[in-house]
């Protein structure tokens, strides 16, 4: 038997807005579903902060601006922690004579790249998106570090 199309239009379920409580419950449940993922990443961050200190990473710089930019990007991407720590460490590195190219790359990759959270990023957004995003972030970190330093040199 054919259904009356008007009847469907009158009672379209998508038009009925669920209560805010229900929506909040659904959002909370969605987060709860990701709890193992978030806890796994947080567990790795804790381990990393204990096993690898930022000073240990900073000792990897070599004194060559170009190589140090790459090293700065890799160190920032490997490190985990509050951005405040990256500022403190970045200031310390500058005082030690590490180039501004490397320090800028280090500051940027600390926030925009993260090897520790890669498994979680792949799980949530998929491998292809994660690969593209991280390659772009890696290239742009170095590019922005070079452009920022060159611009400052031109205007100083």
């Amino acid at each position, binding site marked *: 038997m054919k259904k009356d199309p008007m009847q469907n239009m009158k009672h379209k379920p998508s038009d009925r807005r669920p209560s805010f409580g229900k929506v*909040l419950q659904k959002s909370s449940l969605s987060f709860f579903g990701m709890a193992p*993922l978030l806890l796994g*990443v947080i567990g790795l961050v804790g381990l990393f902060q204990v096993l690898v200190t930022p000073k240990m990473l900073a000792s990897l710089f070599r004194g060559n601006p170009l190589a140090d930019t790459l090293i700065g990007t890799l160190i920032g991407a490997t490190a985990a922690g509050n951005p405040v720590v990256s*500022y403190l460490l970045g200031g310390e590195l500058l005082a030690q004579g590490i180039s501004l190219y490397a320090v800028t790359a280090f500051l940027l990759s600390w*926030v925009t790249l993260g090897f520790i959270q890669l498994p979680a990023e792949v799980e*949530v957004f998929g491998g292809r998106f994660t690969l593209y995003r991280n390659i772009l972030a890696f290239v742009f970190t170095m590019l*922005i570090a070079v452009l920022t330093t060159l611009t400052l040199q031109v205007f100083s």
Partner: protein
Amino acid sequence: MKKQGTSFAFRGKYLFLVVSIFYAVLFVVNSETALAGLQKSSAVLLKILPIIAVVILFTALLNYFMQPRQIANHLGRESGAMVWLWALAAGVISHGPMYAWYPMLDDLRSHGMRDGLIVVFFASRAIKVPLLPMMVDYFGWAFTLVLSFYLLTGALVQGWLLEFLERKELFR
């Protein structure tokens, strides 16, 4: 991949299992380091709990006031130029670690949000408004301004490039 309606599944079970096994082994080998790692992890978790609460509330508000179709219209392929600037602003004002925002972005993406906006959001997070005075103090005004300019411009270019790469692969 995405759970819809009443279906529920935990995500990242294997990652959690691997990390738990690593901690268990570390406890046997070096219990002090394992305990220190757990303490650091607990501190990180406590720190991001308020951020997670805000993100849950924000996700709920978005889902309450905007139907999936509207989200797709505002943040999807048909969205205008302004939405890129909104993604930029959202990235700049967002707090906490990147992974705290994954569930909300995953939710928006499942409703049709374009991938380029996610890239812009992540890339612009390098600018932290509350930390700008500290950056000025450490590296100076000129550095902060020049870096912020390149960062924001770079974030937009990255978003566009990602969509270009995705489109190229789509039509291959």
